[in-house]
């Protein structure tokens, strides 16, 4: 009995000393370290970890066999908010050249992942409508009375959507792969930077998976082979401002 009382008292003492520390620890771990650490004020700029966490959650949500639409929409809206507040930083290099310095690399990575993310999120939601298009097919008798509308009103373009999408429920898987591909290879995949990547297009170090590879003429092919063999030094394309 004595022992337990003693323990209890000790814990209370500890709690008296450290509760504020505990509370702060939870509040501010995710705040941008550059901002003054004000516990209550919402941060102007989220840290990368909050963005990463949100992206992770989005992927996880999509990985579900049938994503919870509410969860998805709330996540996407939150991500958009985070992105919007990060915008001023992200637009620095409008033509992201191959990384020359770590700082530039980080910014360009962020810019490209944001662009990839926006594109991905948009197409994700679009895909959800494809899924619905598929499930519209077995709808039974539709209400024909004047009031109201037929239940589960099939969109007029349903036939086209059906044809476009694959016949199985693997749309999300494909899109998911696409997401990962985009983000992983964003530094090297000039497609993502299409509007501003003219400087990169003729780049000889493009990966083998690109469509442009198919259109390489003989000269470029020779050049590539030379590079691979190592007989010719790698020539970087002139970036802006050089």
């Amino acid at each position, binding site marked *: 009995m004595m022992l337990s009382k003693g323990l209890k008292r000790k814990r209370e003492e500890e709690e008296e000393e450290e509760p504020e520390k505990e509370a702060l620890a939870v509040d501010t771990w995710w705040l941008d370290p550059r901002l003054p650490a004000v516990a209550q004020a919402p941060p102007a700029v989220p840290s990368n970890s909050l963005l990463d966490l949100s992206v992770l959650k989005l992927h996880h949500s999509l990985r579900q066999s049938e994503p919870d639409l509410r969860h998805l929409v709330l996540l996407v809206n939150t991500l958009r*908010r985070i992105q919007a507040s990060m915008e001023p930083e992200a637009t620095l290099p409008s033509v992201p050249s191959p990384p020359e310095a770590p700082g530039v690399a980080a910014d360009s990575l962020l810019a490209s992942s944001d662009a990839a993310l926006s594109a991905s999120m948009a197409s994700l939601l679009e895909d959800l409508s494809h899924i619905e298009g*598929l499930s519209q097919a077995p709808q039974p008798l539709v*209400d024909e009375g004047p009031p*109201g509308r037929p239940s589960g009103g099939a969109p007029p373009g349903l036939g086209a959507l059906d044809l476009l999408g694959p016949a199985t429920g693997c749309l999300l898987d494909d899109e998911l792969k696409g997401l990962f591909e985009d983000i992983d290879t964003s530094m090297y995949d000039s497609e993502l930077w299409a509007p501003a990547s003219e400087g990169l297009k003729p780049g000889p170090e493009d990966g083998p998976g690109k469509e442009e590879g198919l259109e390489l003429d003989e000269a470029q092919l020779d050049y590539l082979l030379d590079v691979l063999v190592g007989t010719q030094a790698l020539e970087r394309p002139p970036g802006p401002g050089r």
Partner: protein
Amino acid sequence: MELKTTRADIISTVEFNHTGELLATGDKGGRVVIFQREQESKNQVHRRGEYNVYSTFQSHEPEFDYLKSLEIEEKINKIRWLPQQNAAYFLLSTNDKTVKLWKVSERDKRPEGYNLKDEEGRLRDPATITTLRVPVLRPMDLMVEATPRRVFANAHTYHINSISVNSDYETYMSADDLRINLWNFEITNQSFNIVDIKPANMEELTEVITAAEFHPHHCNTFVYSSSKGTIRLCDMRASALCDRHTKFFEEPEDPSNRSFFSEIISSISDVKFSHSGRYIMTRDYLTVKVWDLNMENRPIETYQVHDYLRSKLCSLYENDCIFDKFECVWNGSDSVIMTGSYNNFFRMFDRNTKRDVTLEASRENSKPRAILKPRKVCVGGKRRKDEISVDSLDFSKKILHTAWHPSENIIAVAATNNLYIFQDKVN
């Protein structure tokens, strides 16, 4: 007083019927368990009508959608009772895709004395029958049987979150993330679509329907809430398709509380009309709000459920708790409202006295017939002896579903896979 369910399935919905005589629960395994209140007898005055198991049945089974290669969960999202019109009881139960109408009836008599069958049911040779008799009904052990009377399927592409019986007792509505359909109880192969918020381009989707309910008296009026914290009241007389609301309830955002999580915590998880029909109550992540139907620009009352979580939103976002959907309920006289929280806590707010209380549903802290002790969460500084600190709260113990008896102070609280029933103390 408490009751424990025998299987380990998580309770997903709780609902009293209109007299309070029956209490239904639905669980993650697709089962419905109905409890019935004991008739109070003069001999046992101290046993004030306890609830005992009355009927158990499997309402929904897991299904497989072959076209989408997806399994449809059998979890019961909502149960709603129909008002009693004869000896049998009727309820609606729904999972993500299909609503079913169940009839629960008693059989306490059995016909005996058939002419063509013997007592074991075997057919008798007609040649052996020399006399005729009239079969009589004899009492038998009470048997409660549940039979599915209607199955309303194939009308929802997205997940059904609400069902609501209309005051005309002829129709009901079912709502999913993007659409609301109106059904007639007699017709299962058609429904009217009365709300559709699906954008032409799914890329433009920014908001979903989170809950919907019919007005308790006006059969043409209903409300639905959204993930953006808004409520729309619609009048079905205005137009067949109620995409344009009659009233739009939204509280302007408090700029001092703005954060990246503002939208998530403003998402309404439940909306309930008061019994009087004059107010609606909404539950979002941190508060319960009462709205007057005549005032659209702000609620008339706001109650903080667990404001100490406001500074923990990031952690709650990380562990997904910020997406939890709590329900809220009115008491019979609309004077008290109740909702759940974490650590098996639930909260009651008296609208008249403005007093509130936090109670806990757990076996460790309450024995049968013991009085519930109010609990308190300590936010910072000195923690008193009986208080619990915010960081010690168990976020896996959440009270999402509660119900209040329509006329008495009896409440049902679902704590994960346990059901607790609390009553006002007699004497």
